[in-house]
């Protein structure tokens, strides 16, 4: 009843091609943005910002990155974690080489390095497909992880072998380092994630986005329609790795403050892959929903029993979290293999015809 598009006529192709052609969607988006930019900063406590919102946004961005490669271009990747690591190490090197440069610029530039590395590991995708390609990206994962440990130059020869984020200011606000307020970090992360998500939505509705989907849906037909497979796939690898790189850099600069190579291990790759698949392959909104589910649910499971005064041993909660997350993944795959994004569409469809069942 509330979600009805009847009566909304488009008089130009421009209006028809807008990101949210339907009024209700535009309102919904506006509400989400108001919540993100006004309500949450006004009411949330530090724990909510640092342990829920910031990681959620970082993961959502990484999930967008992987979604471009896997969801839109159809190339399965298990190396997301390592590509994020490349971004993190690049950003770290950049900030130590150019200590006076704006740290946010450095974070955005660091993605270029992971884009380059991503493109290199994307090269075999011309000949290799599906699960076989997954092995290529696994090679990237393990090889890059090894590099993070074995090339001391990357971490400035720190005895600890880890990268530590120095304090940097911008416009009088401390944005990185331990003194940076959660709220400042939250705004930086929110702006970067929302900005990149918007820009990617643009790419995805245009020629390049279509050429990725062509490759995904039927690569041979795409080639016969004039899409150059190598160039298109490499571009997907590069764009995807760029975004993952930025997410990885944000992960250490605005969230963790310090990172060891093991922070970018295969587990991180899986975490992101879960988010993409549960959220819905080929959906930007799905990346956010998937990230919310995979990140926030375990946090809830971990801390809610304590808040309710239920006393459970810490490890039991952890075990339960694993079991519940695993079971829910299977459950959601069975309920709707196309992820939350499709569930959301179904819900919208139901609202559209409500109160009639069809």
């Amino acid at each position, binding site marked *: 009843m509330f979600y009805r598009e009847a009566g909304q006529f488009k008089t130009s192709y421009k209006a028809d091609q807008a990101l949210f052609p339907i009024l209700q969607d535009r309102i919904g988006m506006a509400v989400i943005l108001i919540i993100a930019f006004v309500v949450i900063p006004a*009411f949330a*406590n*530090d*724990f*909510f910002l*640092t*342990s*829920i919102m910031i*990681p959620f946004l970082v993961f959502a961005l990484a999930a967008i990155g992987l979604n471009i490669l896997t969801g839109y271009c159809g190339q399965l990747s298990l190396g997301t974690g390592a590509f994020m690591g490349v971004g993190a190490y690049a950003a770290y090197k950049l900030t*130590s080489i150019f200590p006076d440069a704006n740290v946010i610029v450095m974070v955005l530039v660091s993605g270029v390095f992971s884009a380059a590395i991503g493109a290199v590991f994307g090269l075999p995708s011309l000949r290799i497909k599906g699960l076989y390609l997954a092995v290529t990206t696994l090679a990237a994962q*393990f090889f890059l*992880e*090894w590099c993070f*440990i074995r090339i001391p130059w990357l971490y400035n020869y*720190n*005895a*600890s*072998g*880890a990268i*530590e984020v*120095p*304090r940097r200011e911008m416009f009088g606000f401390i944005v990185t*380092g*331990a*003194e940076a307020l959660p709220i400042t970090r939250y705004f930086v992360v929110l702006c970067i994630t929302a900005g990149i998500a918007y820009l990617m939505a643009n790419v995805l509705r245009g020629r390049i986005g279509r050429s990725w989907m062509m490759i995904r849906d039927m690569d041979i037909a795409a080639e016969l329609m004039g899409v150059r497979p190598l160039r298109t796939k490499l571009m997907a690898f590069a764009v995807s790795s760029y975004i993952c790189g930025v997410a990885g850099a944000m992960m250490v600069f605005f*969230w*963790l*403050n*310090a*990172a*060891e*190579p*093991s*922070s970018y291990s*295969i*587990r991180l790759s899986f975490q992101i892959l879960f988010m993409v698949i549960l959220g819905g392959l080929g959906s930007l909104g799905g990346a956010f929903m998937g990230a919310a589910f995979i990140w*926030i*649910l375990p946090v*809830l499971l*971990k*801390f*809610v029993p304590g*808040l*309710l005064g239920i006393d459970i*041993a*810490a*490890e039991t*909660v*952890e*075990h339960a979290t*694993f079991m519940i997350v695993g079971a*829910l993944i299977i*459950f*959601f795959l*069975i*309920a*709707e293999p196309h992820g*939350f994004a499709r*569930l959301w569409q*179904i819900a919208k469809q139901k609202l559209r015809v409500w109160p009639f069942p069809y």
Partner: protein
Amino acid sequence: MRDFKQLAIGAAVAVGVGLTGVMAPAAQAQDSNYVPLLTYRTGPYAGSGIHIANGMHDYLKMLNERDGGIGGVKLELEECETGYNAQKGVECYEATKGKGALVYNPYSTGITLQLIPKASVDKIPVLSMGYGLSAAADGNVFPWVFNVPDTYWDGASVVIKYIGQQEGGLENLKGKKIGYIFLDAGYGREPIPLLEQLAEKYGFELLQYAVPGAEMQNQSSQWLNVRRDRPDYMVMWGWGAMNPTAIKEAVKIRFPMDKFIGVWWSAGDDDAAAGGDGAKGYKAMNFSGVGSDFPALADIQEHVIDAGLSSTDAASVGGTLYNRGVLNSVIIAEGIRTAQELTGKKVITGEDMRMGLEALDLDEARLEELGLKGFAHPMKVTCEDHAGSHPVFIQQWNGEKWQQASDWIEPMTDLVRPLLEAAAKEYAEKNAPWPARTEPCPN
């Protein structure tokens, strides 16, 4: 299938509702001292983590049960599971710091490094007992971080000193080959600069064998290399599942076990037991008591374990890692007690705790008073020196349990201290602007 979908949507709504719960601010405890314990009883390093967690928990719990806490104020304990995972470590920190946390013991180099810069901002000290960042021993640069009783560099110097003793003097190390097998992470790499320096000084050859984290349980290549190189001694910096695997492999290639020496984190009972009979003779450094023959441990047995207040398996009390956890808690408890004495307050804050730890003086008499005579070397923290470079002993596995195999050995402080200070300076420079110490050391 339709029902499934409705259920799925329902579940999503439930998650949303739960979220609002987390947003509510956590209640602050006022009548107790709050000590969060970042532990890991799951994940690949759980094998070592569980014993530590039990030890830490049980001693503090015992103080609550037996003495009603410290200074008449109960301790509020909360375990938070990190799984040795940096992401969850930060999460635990953020979740607990608002409740008036007094001190953090991350038991993971990665999490420690994340907390070090935060410590001075949030004014909560980090106690990384015998791990973490070695440079943190410099209290001038790191007023909020404590790594008593020793740093890895202290440990590395003790191993070399001990090997020197075995060979009848450090000068006899010339021309010897010493192998170093380590977990390929910051933890295992940290001692290398010192070992290299010692190698140069005493003329032995240092051979390095890195074990990647993912290959912890697959070390046959490293040990084949050991077999080829035939080092005279092997030194190990391992953790978690790496330890038992390494010991098994050493047995397999018939390496003389009494020439195989682990760091204090490679000193678990399970680690050595995994090697079976062949592991007899394996040595490891240690700075916490061997065995359960201490009055305080008996109290734990009585007040905590027998009372069913702990998940500890009674047989594991007195194990090296369990005792390590106990020692960690002793330092926490003594820190709190000292802080209470210094400030006159019963319920203290993180800042008070820092003062308490900095004035920590665990002497022979106090240890005896605690029912832990001989459990640890007397240790003292000063404002400048947060590690103290205390003596360490070597213990040996007799096939069933650990036995002390050497006297307390002093680290080569003269060599280590300048390194520590240089490293601290370097850290501060790299992380410029590093906050300066706010309250100067009383000289």
